């Protein structure tokens, strides 16, 4: 069989499994995000490594919902807090040294809820961030690759799940390898499954707004005429908290 076809078929199979096992969590996340927005809060998204793809898939997306905001490690570099090597070599993940400096870059609010995305869910920065979020009384969702998370966190006292109200499983293998050609691993599924589930959260969020009799705050593609004005009307009220 064409190796590309193998990839597409495997992807669909994994998405089917994710739908079957994660639907209730997807619905709960959609409700949490919408309730947060209705109460004046923002959904703060933080992802490390390829977890940033999940963040990007929810944050200011055409056909997505407002208000989300991405907390990004690269902002430490762009704002001159640290050099790029601290991010590139993973040093930033190994302690909470940069956590407060990162959060100080944004306009955070007591009404906000948080999502932390980490395939492993055990990095010191990740657990310190989660602990801080819970200590301040926010709702928190953890997104991990469950098979990897369970392998790595089994003997650890401090792990992302300790602090989360909801946990979403990316439903990839451990390690996240899609195919093999002889002994050579090829490709991954986890981020794409995560992107699909992010869009499922959007769909369920839209349905939840409608069930309440409310208009859903749907963003338009910035590359469609008139979209900027529409999108600004949804994000300007947050006065710099979302963009």
């Amino acid at each position, binding site marked *: 069989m064409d190796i*590309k076809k193998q990839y*597409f078929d495997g*992807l669909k199979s994994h998405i089917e499994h994710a739908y079957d096992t994660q639907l209730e969590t997807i619905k709960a996340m959609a409700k949490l995000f919408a309730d947060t927005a209705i109460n004046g809060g923002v959904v703060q998204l933080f992802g490390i490594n390829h977890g940033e793809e999940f963040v990007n898939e929810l944050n200011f997306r055409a056909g997505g919902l407002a208000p989300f905001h991405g907390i990004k490690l690269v902002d430490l570099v762009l704002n001159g807090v640290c050099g790029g090597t601290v991010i590139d070599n993973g040093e930033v993940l190994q302690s909470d040294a940069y956590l407060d400096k990162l959060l100080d870059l944004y306009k955070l609010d007591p009404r906000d809820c948080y999502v932390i995305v980490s395939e492993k869910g055990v990095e010191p920065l990740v657990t310190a961030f989660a602990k801080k979020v819970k200590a301040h009384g926010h709702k928190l969702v953890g997104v991990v690759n469950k098979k990897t998370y369970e392998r790595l966190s089994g003997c650890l006292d401090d792990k992302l799940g300790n602090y989360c109200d909801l946990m979403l499983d990316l439903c990839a293998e451990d390690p996240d390898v899609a195919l093999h050609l002889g002994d050579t691993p090829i490709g*991954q599924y986890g981020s794409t499954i995560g992107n*699909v589930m992010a869009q499922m959260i959007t769909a369920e969020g839209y349905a939840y707004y409608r069930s309440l009799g409310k208009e859903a705050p749907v963003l*338009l593609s910035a590359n469609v005429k008139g979209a900027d004005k529409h999108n600004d009307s949804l994000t300007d009220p947050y006065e710099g908290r979302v963009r």
Partner: protein
Amino acid sequence: MEVNAGVFKQAIFDLLDTLYEKESANIDAAAQLISDSIQQGGVVHVFGSGHSVGLGIDIKNRVGSLVPIHIMETNDFVKSGAVTLAEFKDKTNVFERRADVADRLYNLYDIKPQDVFIVISNSGINGVVIDIANLAKTNGHKVIICTCMNHTNAESSRHPSGKKLYEFGDVVIDNCGPHGDALLPTDGVAKVCSVSSICNNAIAQSMAAKIIENLQQANYPLPVLTGEPDHDQALIESYKGRA
């Protein structure tokens, strides 16, 4: 119109089937260009504006990933000090729509004659992506375009030449998404649930699998991360400064 996670799952499955059936030959052609380049010591430079950068991120830096992939990021302007953060984030002069910054970005990197470019833009109408593709073509490189033909055919070019991104491609891959990127109709004006990131990932991952298969059939050492530390470190070192 019913909108929920199950409706989206079926819609994205249908779209992935269409994508494979319609674009399989184009993905093969792109994979062949890249396989030839890698065998000549080449690197693939990936440039995408906005969320499109996710295509490059998804196929890089993990077990099962090709190493000779280099992501060109507009963030690199700020990291290198060429542009201030305030200028980069200026909402009144959106960065990705400017037509005068591609030269400066192109010159930030070590680009060799045998290198190939992948340029991604869902709309395919904005300044920077068109200029990067044009620069690569002018400098004799093969250029692979990943875009949404439904969107690009429905909007006017924002580039001074009036051209669109697909016009610069040696190979053009259509992500087969809808105009505006959002897939599901609602009971309002806006559609919800964007698909370009999901389709772009499927294109990139299946293309990477085909590249690796091509290289194996040519008996070329596979530049793929395997999770074996010594192997992976040596491989990364061999592309240092380029990827």
